[in-house]
C-alpha cells in the first residue's frame, strides 16, 4: 500500500530542469532513500514532498490526501517532520522550546508537551539538555535536536535531507544505525536524501537512484548493487570495472552473451534484459573488484580467463587491491591480504560470467 505517491513530478528552476517527470511510491513504514550525485534533483524531490517547493507539474499524495496539483497544501498543514542538512535548529530558542515548537502550535496542554519533549529527548540521547541553547551544543547534539523536533509530533512522514553530511566520519557511521532503529521503532514512513552510497545501503529498505532529474532505478540495496540498471548506477554504487566491447552472440535462453572486448578477446557476460541485446551493439561489462578471482598459476582453461600484469599493489589491511593491466585495460581486483605478488609480475584473472553484467 503506497503511503506517499508521486506522479509525474516536474520542476524546473529558470531553464534548468531539476526533476523530470518522476514517478515514485513509498510504502507505509518504509525507509526509502533518494540517492544521487549533487544536482541530480533528489533534494528538490524531497522539498516537493515537504511543500517547500511548488512543483510545476505532477501530483504529490500523502496518506491518500492530495497535497499538490489539486490545490496546494502548505508545509505547515502536511503533518510532516523534517531534518535539514544544516539542522536548522533555531539559535534563539532553548533545546526544549525548539522541540516543543510544533506541539505548542497544536495547543496541547503544558504537561503533555513537557512529557513528550522529555520522552523524545531521552530517546535521542539528550536527556537533561533541554535547558541549553543550541550554541552550547556540539554539531552532533544539534543534529539530535533536529531529529527530536522532527519526530516529537508523530508526523505521518519523516523527511531527512542529508542529515549526516556535517558530522565527522565516526559519528556519521554511528548515527546511521541510530536513525534507522529510531525510525523503525516509531514506525514512521521515511524519505532520506543522501549522496553517500554507503549511508544509503545501511539505512534504506529501498533506494531510488537519481541522475539528472530522473529516477534511474528503484530497489532494495542488494538488488541495486548486484543488478545495476545501467552504467551510471553500477559506477555510482560501490566500485566497479568497466570493460567495453561489442556483442558477438546472444544466448537468450541463458541470459548470456559473448562480447568482443576492447583488448581483443572474447568474453562471456550476463545480460539482464536479453530482449534489448543484439549483435554488434556496444556494451560495457561491469564487474566488481571482489568478484574477480585471482590465480598465480594458470588454472584449467575456461571462458573469461585473462592474463595480465600487476601495475600497482595497494595493501588495505583486510585485503589487497591489485591494478592489473590486460592489454592496456586496467582492472581493479580485490585479493586476499596474504598474497605476496609484486608489481610487474603476472596474474590470471577469472571474470565469472554470472557476475559480469553487460550494461548499455
Amino acid at each position, binding site marked *: 500500500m503506497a503511503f506517499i505517491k508521486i506522479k509525474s513530478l516536474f520542476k524546473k528552476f529558470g531553464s534548468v530542469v531539476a526533476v523530470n517527470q518522476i514517478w515514485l511510491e513509498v510504502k507505509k513504514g518504509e525507509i526509502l532513500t533518494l540517492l544521487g550525485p549533487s544536482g541530480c534533483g533528489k533534494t528538490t524531490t524531497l522539498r516537493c514532498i515537504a511543500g517547500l517547493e511548488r512543483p510545476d507539474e505532477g501530483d504529490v499524495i500523502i496518506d491518500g490526501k492530495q497535497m499538490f496539483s489539486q490545490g496546494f497544501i502548505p508545509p505547515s498543514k*502536511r503533518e510532516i517532520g523534517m531534518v*535539514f542538512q544544516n539542522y536548522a535548529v*533555531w539559535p*534563539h530558542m532553548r533545546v526544549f522550546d525548539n522541540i516543543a515548537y510544533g506541539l505548542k502550535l497544536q495547543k496541547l496542554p503544558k504537561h503533555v508537551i513537557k512529557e513528550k519533549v522529555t520522552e523524545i529527548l531521552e530517546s535521542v540521547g539528550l536527556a537533561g539538555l533541554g535547558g541549553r541553547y543550541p550554541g552550547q551544543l556540539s554539531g552532533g547534539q544539534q543534529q539530535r535536536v533536529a531529529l527530536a523536533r522532527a519526530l516529537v509530533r508523530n508526523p505521518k512522514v519523516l523527511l531527512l535531507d542529508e542529515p549526516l553530511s556535517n558530522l565527522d566520519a565516526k559519528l556519521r557511521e554511528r548515527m546511521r544505525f541510530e536513525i534507522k532503529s529510531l525510525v523503525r521503532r516509531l514506525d514512521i514512513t521515511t524519505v532520506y536524501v543522501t549522496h553517500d552510497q554507503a549511508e544509503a545501503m545501511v539505512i534504506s529498505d529501498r533506494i531510488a537512484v537519481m541522475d539528472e532529474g530522473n529516477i534511474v532505478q528503484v530497489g532494495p540495496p542488494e538488488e541495486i548493487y548486484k543488478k545495476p540498471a545501467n552504467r551510471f548506477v553500477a559506477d555510482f554504487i560501490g566500485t566497479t570495472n568497466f570493460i567495453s566491447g561489442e556483442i558477438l552472440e546472444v544466448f537468450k535462453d541463458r541470459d548470456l552473451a559473448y562480447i568482443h572486448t576492447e583488448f581483443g578477446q572474447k568474453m562471456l557476460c550476463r545480460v539482464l534484459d536479453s530482449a534489448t541485446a543484439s549483435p554488434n551493439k556496444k556494451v560495457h561489462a561491469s564487474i566488481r573488484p571482489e568478484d574477480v578471482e585471482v590465480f598465480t598459476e594458470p588454472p584449467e582453461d575456461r571462458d573469461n580467463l585473462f592474463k595480465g600484469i600487476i601495475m600497482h599493489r595497494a595493501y588495505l589491511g583486510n585485503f589487497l587491491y591489485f591494478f592489473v593491466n590486460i592489454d592496456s585495460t586496467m582492472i581493479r581486483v580485490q585479493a586476499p591480504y596474504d598474497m605476496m605478488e609484486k608489481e610487474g609480475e603476472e596474474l590470471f584473472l577469472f571474470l565469472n560470467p554470472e557476475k559480469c553484467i553487460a550494461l548499455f
Partner: protein
Amino acid sequence: MSRGNLFLSTLLWLVVAFFVIYPLSFLVLESFKIAGTNHFGIQNYIDFFKDAYYLKTFSNTLLLGLLVLLTTTLLGLPLAYILARYRLMGKTLLTALILLPIVLPAYAGAFALIVFFGKQGTVNLLLLEWGLISKPINFIYGLHGLVFIQALHLLPFIVLSLSAGFTNIDPSLEEAAEVEGAHGFKRFLTVTLPLCTPNYLAGAVIVFLWPFTDWLTPLIFGLPDFLPSIAYINIAYHFTDMYRKYMGIVSVVVSSVICVAMFLISKRWVESKKYTALSKGTTLEGRIIDPGAFIRLGSYLYMFFTAILVLLIPTVLGLSAFSRRWVLEPFPTYWTLDNFRLIFIESPGLLKNSFVFSGVALLFGVVFGLPAAYLITRTKVPGKDTLDFVITLMLAFPGIAVGVSYLLAFWEVVPLATHWMVMPLSLFVRRLPYFLRMAHASYLQLDISLEEASEVSGAGKFRTFLNISLPLLLKGVFVGVVMFFIMAFQEISTAVFLYRGGWETLPIGIYLNWHRGMEFGIAGAMAFLMIVIIFILLLIVSRIGGGILGAAWGSAGGRY
C-alpha cells in the same frame, strides 16, 4: 613583534591621547568644578538633577528617543521586509531614494518640511485657498513634528539593519518553522523577527541616541527643552552665567554618559547573540519571493509614500533656492539666481572653508585610519584591542561633546582653538572611527597570504603595504574616503562651538542665515547646494562601490 609596529602603536596612541582622551577628560573634569573656585565636587550634578527644568529636559530627551524609535520601527519594519524579501520592479531605485536621508543633514530636512507643512506652509495655504479649512492646521510644530522629522531622517538606519537581518537568516530556519506547522505571520513572529533582534538593536541604538546628539532640529522647531539644545544655548549664549554654563556642561556629560552606556550595552548584547555564525549554507539572496498582486500593490504604495516624503526635502529646498520672497504663497512666484550670487560672490568663504576643512580632516583620517586598521587587523601589538575600543567608542559620543570639550581643553592650557586647524581636527576626531571601520573591513577581506607572499619574496613590511595591500584596499578605502568627506561636509554639531569669524562652513552658514531670521532663500540655496554636492559625491561612490545602496550601507556601518 617588530619595533616598527611598536613605534606605530605608540604614535597612534599619542594622537588618541592628545586629541581624544585629553579633551574629553577635560570636559568631564570641568563638569565637577565648583563654580568660581578651584575645588571639585558633585555639586553641579546635584543642582542639575534638583532643578525641575533640567530634569524635564532630561525626561523630554528620553521620551523623544523612545517616540522616534517607535515611529521608525513601525514605519521601517514593513519597508525592510519588502526590500529584503519581495522581488519588485524598480526596487533598487526606490531603495536608493528611501535611504537618501542617511546622507542628508537632518536640519536641511527640518527647514524643508517647515516650509511645506508649516502653519504658513504650502499645504496649509493650498487647503485655505481651496476653502477646505478656515484656519491653518498645525501639522508640524510640536513634539509630533519633531518626532516625524527625526524619524524620517533615521528611518534608513532601521530599514538597513533590519533588511540585512532578513536577508541573512538561513532560509532553512524559516522552512523548519513551516514544516513544524507555523505559517505566515506566526512564523514571522516566532522565528524571523527574533532572529533579527541583533540587527535591529544595532540600528535601534543609533536611532534612540540621535535626540541626545541633535541640538539643531529641536531649535528649528522652537522646542529648546532637550538636553543637547539646552546645552548649546547655555554654552554658546550664556557662557558668562556660571550656573548656566555648568548646567550646559553637565547636560553634555549626561548625554555622553547615556550614549556611551547605551552603545556599550547594545554592543555587548549584539555580540552575545550572534546567531549567524551558527548556521551554514546561507544563500546570499536569502529568500526572495514574487509577491501576490495585493501585496505588490501595497508594497509599491508604501514605498512611493516614503519616497515622496523623502523627495520633498530636496524639492522644497530647490524651489526656495531659485526664488526669493517665498512668503505666504503656496509656491514661489519670483524666480531668481540671486541666492546663488550671494553665496558664490559675496561669501565664497563658506564653500571654501567647507572644502578645505573637510579635505584636511579627511587627510588626517586617512593618515591615521590606514595605519590604525593595519595595526588592529594585522599585528599583535599589546594594547591594540584597547586602541580599537577607544576609537570605536567615539561613535557613541555626541558631536556637541567633542565641540564643547575642544572649546574647553584647547583654550588656555593648549591654545589650539585660536588656529583654524582646530576645525578640521575636531571634524577628524568626531569621525575618527569612521574611516578606520572602512579600512578595517577592507583589510579583513584582504587575504593575509597575499601579503605574506610578498614578504617571502623579499619585500619589507612597508613596501608590502605600498605594493600589495594598498592597491588591493583601494576600492574600499576610496568609498570610505568619499563617505568620510560627505559626513565631514555636513557636520555642524561640533563645528558650531569652535568657529570664529571667517571660519564659517556651509552648514554653519545655513544655520546662521536661518537664525538671523533672514530670508529663507539663502539658507535654502545653501542646503540645496550641499545636497547637490553630496549627491555628486554619492554618484561617484556608487560608480565605484557598487550601487548607492552599497554607499549608504557604508555610511550606516560607519555611524554605528
